[in-house]
């Protein structure tokens, strides 16, 4: 284990001072909380030598509303709409992670059709999250909104699907313990199939615009490098870890839900830089489309919720459970302790973007301030989830 892993963070008390050669003065800049590219109310306390980053401390908590405390004071069901607001881009995967944890805790079975619906909605969520993230990343690189608008254009279509199914575009609040809330409306599968069929063409267009662009290559290759060992040790998950070459996808490892029924591959990067993180997301979207094609073809008829599941007066037996899924941003886990009451005794969210921020400083040191911005963009954080 290298020394950097043993003593991760530098002493916080370091103040801006003359740099080692004693000639230039270090400049401390507070980037955020209202900075256009910090993706919400996030602050980076950066010390710069010229434009090079010498120290970078993420500061957050501006959006902290103590979701966990609120959840401990209310019933299991009432926390479900709050999970929408964790990672507000991917409310359906948040729902799923929470539902999964509660199902483990209470031993509920999910009917087959509901599992298929969950996979379809989760993969659609992954599609729109990755698309938008790439748009935001390009926005951080200064592409003036064009890729972002294309991403939003496609996302609108997926959000239309979500609205038709769940009644809301972003705060879906759709999954329930032991299944889903409502069945698919008529024509929904056909609409989803249409979007899935059209998506590869959009991805091709997107790649023509971005993947080969010399400026993007120059800006992102070799920037924000995350070594594989550090990624594992620091608990980095999701596309960020896979771009660093960590073969760890919970859809393959845990095979939660019915993911063992679908054939798809896990793309891995070798460099762990910003470009890899971008490309891994593109490739993941293509794999998601494969899953969607299979799921849309195979979805059976049947009930959508476990008949044992209770909406009112749900009291799981005392005990604890940790359930996790592969959310678009990484491993999203819920840790629940029940004392037999109607409220969880302990409710904990393991947010991927929060833990992925651990290595932000390591990735940014030595790069310029402009690189720090795109490195942050490529980590894909959502402050609703970081601060909770």
């Amino acid at each position, binding site marked *: 284990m290298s020394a950097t892993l043993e003593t991760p*963070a530098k002493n916080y008390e370091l103040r801006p001072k003359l740099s080692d050669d004693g000639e230039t003065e270090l400049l401390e800049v507070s980037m955020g909380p209202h900075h256009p590219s910090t993706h919400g109310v996030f602050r980076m306390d950066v010390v710069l030598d010229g434009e090079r980053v010498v120290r970078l401390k993420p500061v957050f908590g501006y959006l902290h509303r103590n979701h966990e405390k609120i959840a401990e004071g209310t019933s299991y069901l009432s926390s479900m709409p709050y999970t929408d607001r964790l990672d507000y881009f991917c409310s359906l995967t948040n729902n799923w992670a929470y539902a999964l944890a509660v199902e483990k805790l209470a031993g509920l079975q999910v009917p087959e059709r509901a599992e298929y619906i969950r996979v379809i909605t989760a993969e659609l969520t992954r599609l729109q999250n990755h698309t938008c993230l790439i748009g935001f990343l390009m926005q951080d690189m200064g592409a003036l909104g064009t890729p972002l608008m294309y991403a939003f254009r496609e996302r609108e279509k997926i959000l239309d699907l979500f609205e038709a199914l769940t009644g809301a575009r972003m705060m879906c609040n759709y999954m329930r313990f032991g299944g889903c809330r409502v069945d698919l409306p008529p024509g929904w599968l056909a609409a989803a199939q249409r979007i899935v069929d059209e998506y590869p063409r959009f991805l091709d267009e997107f790649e023509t615009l971005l993947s080969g662009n010399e400026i993007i290559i120059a800006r992102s290759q070799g920037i924000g490098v995350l070594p594989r060992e550090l990624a*594992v040790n620091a608990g980095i998950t999701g596309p960020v870890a896979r771009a660093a070459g960590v073969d760890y996808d919970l859809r393959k490892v845990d095979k939660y839900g019915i993911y063992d029924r679908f054939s798809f591959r896990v793309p891995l990067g070798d460099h762990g830089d910003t470009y890899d993180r971008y490309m891994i997301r593109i490739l993941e979207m293509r794999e998601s489309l494969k899953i969607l094609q299979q799921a849309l073809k195979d979805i059976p008829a049947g009930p959508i919720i476990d008949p044992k599941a209770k909406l009112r007066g749900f009291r799981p*037996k005392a*005990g604890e459970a940790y359930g996790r899924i592969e959310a678009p941003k990484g491993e999203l*886990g819920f840790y629940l302790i029940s004392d037999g009451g109607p409220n969880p005794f302990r409710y904990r969210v393991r947010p991927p973007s929060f833990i992925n921020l651990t290595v932000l400083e390591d990735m940014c040191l030595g790069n310029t301030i402009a690189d720090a911005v795109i490195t942050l963009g490529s980590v894909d954080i959502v402050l609703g989830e970081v*601060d909770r």
Partner: protein
Amino acid sequence: MATARTSQDCLTNVETLEQIKDRITHVLPGARLEIVPNESPSGQRSLLVDHEHAGAIATFLRDDAELRLDYCSNATGVDWPEAVVKTKIKKPVVTDGVEKEVEETVDALRSGYLEAVYHLYSVAKKHGPVILRLRTGNRTDKVTLPSLTPVWRSCEYQEREIFDLFGIKFAGHPDLRRILMWDGFVDHPMRKDYVEPDDFEYEPTPHDAVLERAKTHYPSEVKT
């Protein structure tokens, strides 16, 4: 316990929690370990670890060739306040000359403590979780636990969060500061006995307790 690997809940492909415990006590003879049962259908039992050997046990779990628990997924705190625990005990009672087993609930006072829980997985071997627990002496002054950040870097922010929200101090943490609450904040909001200040939410809502509090706190500004 069956070692059969289900799709979701497995410990490791090779060992049960008892075997892991035996291996640890074999390698670290002084270590005091205890398996914490879990009644829920998830069946995720955990390993209670003592303070002195926590670092060594963690390093062993990470570096052992069989286990390779190189990835600490989740680290969190739990607050167990002082509480009366009802336990059912079967007791022989002689009634009418016949001895019968009668269940009786016994109230026991559980002293309060804080707990840090670590969920460990292996990226290399793709198994898990092995759950570690560390308990503090009480909830007031003996709240120091050894930090596992030197072993798993992913605990860095999570232990800071536990410190912030529960008030467990982690000895050996490189940068133990508040992370979600602001620096001037004094209490630990995730503790069960935390009382929110009466002005914590300025925006009053009709029919809310907040409104009443706000009226006393900001009499001139609150209408309705």
